[in-house]
């Protein structure tokens, strides 16, 4: 959805949080890795009672004995019981992970947030310290540390925790910087939100998941470093650890090759369990819409395919665009389908402007994206079909978007004007490149010809110095100019149908009027059909011939623009119109209580 309001976001986060534990428990990976780690913790704590032998007790009569009923995993070169040593090895392993993680999170995350958000000197200093830590070869530092402070794993792992802090710091900082540069944080800052609240509301949501994954990763790295040090023979010699066992096994690799297997397996499965647990938490935290598209699409039968094949649709329509019984939904975590567009039908003739009006979440943008075939990857067309000049864009039979047909039309016959000008230009390419490339692709013009054409179009959309603008990058132009550029891009190949998704919403009021004038003028001049998605009746009154009013994904009312504005039939249309006339823009859902009171 392109027009998420803050209220909606807050609402959806709450839902995600509530079902987080449920979704975690439903994931078998969580159960497997979680129980494994639980067993480890228990074995570590109760090692004395669980281990069948004293892990240090040597038995010269049973050196390198194979697996037998007395020694379940055999004995090592000193005749010590391998199973008991594995069980005792849990202690040093888990303690290492805990020390490292706690140290690095406590230092790294706050530092990264502060550095990334406030930038400038704070950022320079902390980034510099981070670079310094990263430049220190961890293992060598750990050697130096154990030389100075003795072979204590507590000290070694604490130092390693400090050394690996950049893992959290950089991640947090990069994420925060990215978010900070996004327009919405600027918007939040301008609208007077305090710095602290901006961090909490926008930025924490972005960095939370990466931090959790990183924590699992670093637990694993800590275990592998500790084992590696022990393997090199540089750990505490009295401490029982899997790394030391691995080293002893490697020495005896010819006589008893299984000796490396047990500690190797113990190390790998413990690190693996941490990684799996981290992954499971990430999956649960991620968007509730994380359902594999390819598999889920086939899972949902088109429930109203019969509806779509009734009488009127049989005869090929004379309309340029026909949308019939369209339903679009998103698969939910629990397997249900949440419909955002249901049973929407309309048509559009050549040169006609159809306004689709509704509040955020009414499904109007999703309807527009269906026509373009550019729904998000996890959206599912549950029923209905779309036809453009007799070509099926969404198949009547299967409900599949016919990307091949659409690819032939997109940019050439059907064009798109997005809502948010700044986020719809690739920041890494110049305006000129982004305008010329489609023209060379679609109209097969040479670069020079395309350039001339684009210059003409930029002039047409009211850009004063087109030569200069073409050499600029998107961040160097204003929002109003970017929207003109996007309009120029949409009309550059002379389309027959223009899909405009809230083309003026993100602009200043004065610029809005100019862009509307421009759109009206272009539409008349080029004779384009236009689907105009908006929440604003003013825009509709200005441009549209006919109007559809949508609410909760359904068409509430449709008709000619004059009739509908003069004498709206449905109560919802009246409320919507009423709130407009009071000068308020209904950005949020009108609640049930509001509707009852009117």
């Amino acid at each position, binding site marked *: 959805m392109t027009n998420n309001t803050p209220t909606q976001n807050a609402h959806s986060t709450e839902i995600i949080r509530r079902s987080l534990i449920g979704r975690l428990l439903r994931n078998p990976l969580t159960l497997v890795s979680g129980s494994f780690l639980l067993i480890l913790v228990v074995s570590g704590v109760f090692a004395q009672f669980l281990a069948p032998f004293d892990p240090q007790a040597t038995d010269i009569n049973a050196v390198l004995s194979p697996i037998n009923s007395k020694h379940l995993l055999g004995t090592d070169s000193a005749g010590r019981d391998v199973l008991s040593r594995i069980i005792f090895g849990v202690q040093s392993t888990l303690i290492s992970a805990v020390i490292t993680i706690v140290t690095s999170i406590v230092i790294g995350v706050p530092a990264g947030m502060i550095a990334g958000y406030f930038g400038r000197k704070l950022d320079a200093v902390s980034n510099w310290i981070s670079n310094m830590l990263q430049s220190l070869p961890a293992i060598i530092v750990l050697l130096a540390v154990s030389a100075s402070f003795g072979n204590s794993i507590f000290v070694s792992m604490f130092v390693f925790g400090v050394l690996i802090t950049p893992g959290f710091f950089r991640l947090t900082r990069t994420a925060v910087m990215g978010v900070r540069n996004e327009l919405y944080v600027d918007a939040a800052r301008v609208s007077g939100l305090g710095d602290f609240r901006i961090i909490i509301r926008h930025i924490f949501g972005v960095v939370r998941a990466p931090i959790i994954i990183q924590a699992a990763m670093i637990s694993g790295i800590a275990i592998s470093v500790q084992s590696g040090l022990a393997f090199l023979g540089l750990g505490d010699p009295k401490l029982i650890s899997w790394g030391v066992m691995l080293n002893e096994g490697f020495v005896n690799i010819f006589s008893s090759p299984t000796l490396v297997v047990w500690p190797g397996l113990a*190390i790998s499965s413990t690190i693996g369990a941490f*990684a799996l647990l981290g992954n499971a938490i990430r999956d649960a935290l991620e968007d509730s819409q994380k359902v594999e598209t390819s598999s889920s699409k086939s899972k949902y039968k088109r429930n109203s395919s019969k509806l779509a094949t009734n009488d009127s649709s049989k005869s090929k329509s004379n309309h340029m665009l026909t949308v019939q019984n369209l339903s679009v939904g998103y698969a939910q975590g629990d397997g249900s389908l949440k419909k955002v567009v249901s049973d929407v039908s309309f048509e559009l003739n050549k040169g006609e402007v159809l306004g689709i009006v509704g509040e955020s979440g009414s499904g109007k943008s999703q309807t527009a994206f269906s026509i373009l075939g550019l729904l998000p990857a996890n959206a599912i067309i549950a029923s209905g079909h779309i036809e453009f000049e007799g070509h099926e864009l969404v198949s009547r039979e299967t409900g599949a978007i016919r990307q091949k047909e659409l690819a032939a039309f997109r940019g050439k016959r059907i064009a798109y004007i997005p809502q948010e000008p700044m986020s719809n230009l690739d920041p890494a390419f110049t305006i000129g490149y982004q305008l010329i490339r489609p023209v060379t692709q679609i109209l097969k013009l040479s670069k020079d010809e395309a350039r001339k054409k684009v210059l003409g179009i930029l002039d047409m959309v009211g850009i004063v110095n087109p030569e200069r603008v073409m050499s600029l990058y998107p961040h160097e132009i204003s929002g109003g100019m970017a929207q003109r550029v996007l309009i120029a891009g949409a009309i550059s190949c002379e389309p027959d149908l223009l899909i405009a998704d809230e083309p003026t919403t993100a602009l200043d009021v004065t610029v809005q009027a100019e862009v509307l004038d421009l759109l009206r003028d272009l539409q008349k001049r080029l004779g384009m059909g236009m689907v105009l998605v908006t929440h604003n009746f003013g825009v509709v009154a200005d441009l549209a011939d006919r109007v559809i009013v949508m609410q909760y994904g359904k068409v509430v009312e449709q008709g000619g623009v004059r009739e509908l504005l003069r004498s709206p039939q449905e109560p919802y249309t009246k409320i919507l119109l009423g709130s407009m006339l009071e000068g308020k823009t209904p950005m949020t859902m009108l609640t049930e209580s509001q509707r009852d009171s009117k």
Partner: protein
Amino acid sequence: MLGFISRRLLSGVLLLLVTSSVAYFLMFASSNSIAINLLGDAATKDQIVAKEHELGLDRPILARYFDWLGHAVTGNLGKSWLSSESISESLLSRLGVTLTLVGVVIILAAIIATILGMLAAVKGGWIDRLVQVIGITGFAVPNFVVAIFLVTVFAIQTPIFPATGWVPFSEDPKQWLMSLALPVSALVLGTVASSAQQIRSAIKSVLERDWVRTLKSRGIPQREILFKHVLRAAAPAGLTVLSLQFVGLLGGVVIIEQLFALPGMGYLAVSSTTSGDTPVVMGVVVYTVILVIVVNLLVDLLNGWLNPKNRVK
């Protein structure tokens, strides 16, 4: 741009200075038992005093530090306490082995991880799951465990590759390749495992951006969008991942060089640490820091070039 480079270089020099100072004081602060370690327990008191004087350990640490620093600036990192060899020379002769190992691993891993990450992000389905499985497996099994497994299978049970040792490229390119095969494989798995997943999520988040949809709506072919626009937008994240991997590898090779008896810097570091040859360890620290600074600078330059917004004026 020139100002940017010189500023980064200056900050790199400062970084080197601070890092090496911290390392120096950390390592030489507890140099009480150095002479005993070098001479053995049987050494008499006079011998110890003589040795300490010979090594300059009887002078205050600050004086020794500035001495060391003065020489280090000219590229002279002193002499080994054990062999009296020039540290800079012995490091330079070993740098090649380590850099070859790390370089080959990084290049291979970058290619494999980008392909896997891209496929997983775009196609999803089984490739996505495969990348996740590789990610977890490669991460769960530390490189020295992989190495032990590889040595057991491909050097001991079926002796295709040498279990240990290093053959210089100039001596015999084929043997060089053979001696690289197992250590490189042991390191590549882990590097690919962690970077492929991060590159996948970087690409995936780019794919969700508004401008990708707009490019599609303009009729630009999917392939061009992916390779020209999406890959480029995901590159800064990918480069950051790889630069972190590079530093990780500089540590990772220490164990691998030890395990395969490769005459690199890591091998030298471990043997010098165990034998108490601290100036050599100090030299390894300095060289490693220089390598990291150079790589970070390169990544910064690439990122600046890739994203016009980041370009520093």
